[in-house]
């Protein structure tokens, strides 16, 4: 059979416009001329305009991509990027044609924005579209949030940027790395399909559990202890005969304060401040309310250029919960057997 793979990725030069190649490594500064449109100025004086649009969560049709390709051909010499937040960017757009492009692409249903102090493109995993582990439907929530926050996507009115990531389960994907994250949580223990059990390899399943919650039951099946299970889904991932999820109990948690860069108080993962909200498609009111509540408290109180993490760093968690109107529960206290690191060892209280 003929060879497969071993190729790698195309060279950089193949997919970038002339101006980018010419000024590669020689960019001097940039201006965000309007939400979604970044003007990059090179030492040579050359400029390169990019136009950024939001993308549908997790899945896009070939039909839509081809429409975007048509626009790219017409306005950016056929060049585009998918950003690290999965925004779509037309690269090297003729400044005089920008408004025209914006009209056309927005009329196709792709809003322009998501730069600087705005809500950026929302990242979400496939959830119920294609995965077997989700406790919640990331794309559905992303869509509901996008609809609610569209004006903040299209404007630069926030103290700093607001990034929202959504993961359908404890695998979490991006959620904890965002200013606000949504993470699917299973609450019931996985279901063992006794009859099917023999297709899986008992030792492997037992080994897959981080907390040792899975014990053998006879030669062929296993039992899961509710005391030890942390609902991580690893067993379901590794064994066909263990099902995770319960329509009546599944839901999601909300985290805040993720940030990657080394500025301010430095990089850190977010912290989970709302342990559980119920799944409520297709409008996902609970998710929308939680996010907007946090966003408004931050917006009202933060200093310019202060991301959610830095805002909390300044005012302290004591005051965050008050200002955000979130009730503290015992679930906020890290008691995971391998966690336990956040117990307080000072009296520096902000009553």
């Amino acid at each position, binding site marked *: 059979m003929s060879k*497969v793979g071993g190729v*790698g990725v195309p060279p950089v030069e193949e997919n970038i416009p002339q101006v980018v190649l010419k000024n590669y490594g020689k960019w001097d500064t940039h201006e965000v001329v309007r939400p979604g449109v970044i003007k990059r100025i090179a030492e040579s004086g050359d400029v390169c305009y990019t136009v950024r649009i939001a993308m549908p969560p997790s899945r896009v049709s070939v*039909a839509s991509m081809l429409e975007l390709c048509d626009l790219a051909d017409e306005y950016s010499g056929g060049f585009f990027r998918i950003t690290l937040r999965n925004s779509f960017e037309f690269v090297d757009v003729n400044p005089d044609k920008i408004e025209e492009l914006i009209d056309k692409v927005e009329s196709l249903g792709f809003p322009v924005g998501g730069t600087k102090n705005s809500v950026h493109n929302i990242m979400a995993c496939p959830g119920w579209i294609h995965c*077997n582990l989700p406790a919640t439907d990331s794309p559905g929530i992303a869509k509901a949030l996008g609809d609610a926050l569209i004006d903040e996507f299209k404007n630069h009115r926030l103290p700093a940027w607001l990034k929202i990531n959504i993961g359908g389960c404890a695998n979490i994907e991006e959620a904890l790395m965002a200013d606000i994250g949504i993470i699917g949580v299973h609450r019931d223990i996985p279901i063992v399909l006794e009859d099917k059990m023999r297709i899986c390899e008992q030792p492997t399943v037992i080994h897959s559990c981080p907390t040792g919650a899975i014990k053998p039951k006879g030669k062929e099946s296993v039992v899961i202890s509710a005391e030890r299970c942390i609902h991580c889904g690893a067993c379901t991932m590794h064994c066909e005969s263990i099902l995770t999820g319960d329509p009546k109990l599944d839901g999601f948690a909300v985290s805040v304060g993720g940030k990657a860069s*080394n500025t301010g108080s430095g990089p850190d993962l977010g912290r989970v401040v709302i342990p559980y909200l119920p799944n409520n498609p297709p409008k996902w009111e609970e998710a929308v309310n939680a996010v907007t509540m946090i966003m408004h408290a931050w917006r009202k109180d933060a200093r310019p250029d202060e991301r959610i993490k830095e805002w909390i760093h300044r005012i302290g968690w004591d005051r965050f919960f008050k200002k955000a109107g979130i009730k503290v529960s015992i679930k906020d206290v890290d008691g995971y057997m391998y966690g336990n690191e956040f117990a307080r060892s000072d009296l520096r209280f902000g009553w």
Partner: protein
Amino acid sequence: MADISKTADRTVKEGLTGSETPYMDELCKGPWPSHARELKRTQYPVMMYEEGIKQRWTQWGHGGMSSVPGLGSGAIARKSRRPDIISHSHLIRVLGNPGTFYKTSTFRKICELTERYGDGSLHMLTTNYNIEICGIMNDEQMKAVTQELNAMGYDVGSAGDAMRNMPDCMGPALCEYAVMDTPRLKHFMTKHFIDDIQYPRFPFKIKTKMAGCPNDCGKALLHGDIGIIGVFRDLPKINDRRLSDWVNRGGDIRWVCDNCPTNAMNWDGKKLTIDGDSCIRCMYCINRVPAIKPGDDRGVAITAGGKMKGKYGPMKGKVIFPFIKVTPPDYKELVAAYTRICDVYDDNGRKKERIGDMIQRIGMDKFLELCGVEPSPMNFTSPRRNTFYHWEHEELGGVHE
């Protein structure tokens, strides 16, 4: 080829048209781009999603890494729990381009393949920055797609216990802050390690993430099993003339000084100085003031152990090699350091144990030793608190024999 595509045994057309999809119809409304609308424009079995929403439970069944014929990796297989709608639906992961730049001429081919062999839906991009071609039904199709991609100079992989796609940021291609050439490094690394990307051989997945500077748009430190991030050791460079112009044009330098996390900046009204004893190269002043640029003593920091789940839960990466020179074309030092980490993992990791969990288990000191790192404060936030040392035989001069 045509025949292969026909072999797709998709479910009854009714299911697909989505005539009875009140939930998805709801999700098609509103200003934000709608995945529901997108799915409806494809051959994706919409009733799978509609039913999922209705029952508030995914209708999809077991799945995970599967291999493209002739390769060890490259696909995700997915069974369905609703054979009445569809039996299964696989997808292929196409490695993302350097800097994730695309041009329509080649991309249209990818669209064509997706139509021909898949259900017409794409994942643009995954959070590890691959393109996923969705709705592929069988091995022949997978192989065909892969071979056609190969012909275009594209490739697949990045599934299972292999090295995954190595996402980068746009770096010098468009960004003024880049102190490292991420796209070219990505291109080099992908070719250099293509076998490890396509043939799983590690205890668990290895996700390598890259960023061109400490702003870390690649979130490499937070979630890279291995992170490669551009850093500089000397102080930020200040262009005095340009700075005063900027200030005269209304730039608020005092504000920037106030926000320097270590109060390293001192503006006396005329001149800006940065205290070398305080600056931690955080990028803030550089981000805010065009007259301040990264220093010239450049390289990369290599981190390890970032991940989101696993036994010890979510973990940030830890600094292993704080500074490595970047030397194309062979990137000797970098490849050596990177390979060392992978080998140590290969030799010491337990099945399905991520690098971060392994470090937690064997200890950061042991890991650094195995990696041959000469320890420095760049490796820790503080020295240890306990005196529970392990003393090597040499340290005891063999006395206790």
